């Protein structure tokens, strides 16, 4: 097994891409995690089962990862409980307002050459770069 982190990153990325292609080819759906979960929170008739199945797949994948190598999954997160809760709220609300997250806009949207997704990715990457710069290098690296 190759163990270079960058090679594994590429291989993992190809697996993610393959998973997204599978969902498109089989179910005709975009593999955007926030869209899939968000849609399940406001279910329409006949539209809930595949969403729950995808989420179940994610959770089951996590369980497999835990068995294979428990250090793959995070234990403690940086920052206080308040920071974590605020970050979660922002990620959830922002992804729905912006029509997608790293998977929907990043993987599928960029893959479909969507101008909306390119704008979204450039925006959230830039804001995240600035946020990390501020928290780590300006505010004194509390995280």
């Amino acid at each position, binding site marked *: 097994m190759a163990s270079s*982190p960058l090679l*594994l*990153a*590429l291989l*993992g990325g*190809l*697996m*993610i*891409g393959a*998973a997204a292609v599978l969902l*498109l080819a*089989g*179910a*005709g*759906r*975009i593999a955007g*995690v*926030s869209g899939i979960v*968000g849609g399940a*929170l406001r279910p329409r008739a006949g539209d809930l089962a*595949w969403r729950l*199945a995808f989420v179940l797949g994610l*959770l*089951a*994948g*996590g369980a497999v*990862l835990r068995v294979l190598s428990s250090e*793959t999954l995070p*234990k403690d*997160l*940086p920052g206080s*409980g308040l920071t*974590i*809760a*605020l970050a979660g*709220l*922002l*990620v*959830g609300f*922002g992804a*729905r*307002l*912006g*029509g997608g*997250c790293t*998977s929907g806009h*990043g*993987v*599928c949207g*960029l*893959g479909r050459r*969507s*101008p*909306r997704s390119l704008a*979204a*990715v450039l*925006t*959230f990457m830039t804001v995240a770069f600035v*946020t990390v710069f501020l928290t780590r290098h300006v505010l004194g690296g509390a*995280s």
Partner: protein
Amino acid sequence: MTVLVALLSGLVFALGLGLAGMTRPENVLAFLDLAGAWDPALMLVLGGAAGLYMLAAPLVLRRGRPLLAPRFHLPQRSRVDRSLLAGAALFGLGWGLVGLCPGPALVGLAGGSGDLALFVAAMLAGMFLFTRVEAPSP
């Protein structure tokens, strides 16, 4: 049958995230920290995933319909508008604060971390909040 496809897709998606190291927030933050010990891994993950999708999706769409469903459900909007940019900015702020986005957060739940459960609960609350402020459903 779409349920089985979705289950398998979610599973492979999660394993890909884990293999790529993206289930660990510190690896994500290492990519986002341009002024620190910058780690390009996330770019390879996104490039590999979006690159494969870019090659394969047109072939899939050329068939006209999915294998197990009546039709494709693709985003119809094409205009870059204010909610897209505002939403992406809020998302980027939250992502940068702890290094977690929805996929890795859900996958990571299996690790049993209380911090992660808190993040996911808040994320679901944020998504639910959106359904309340969005145009009221019929």
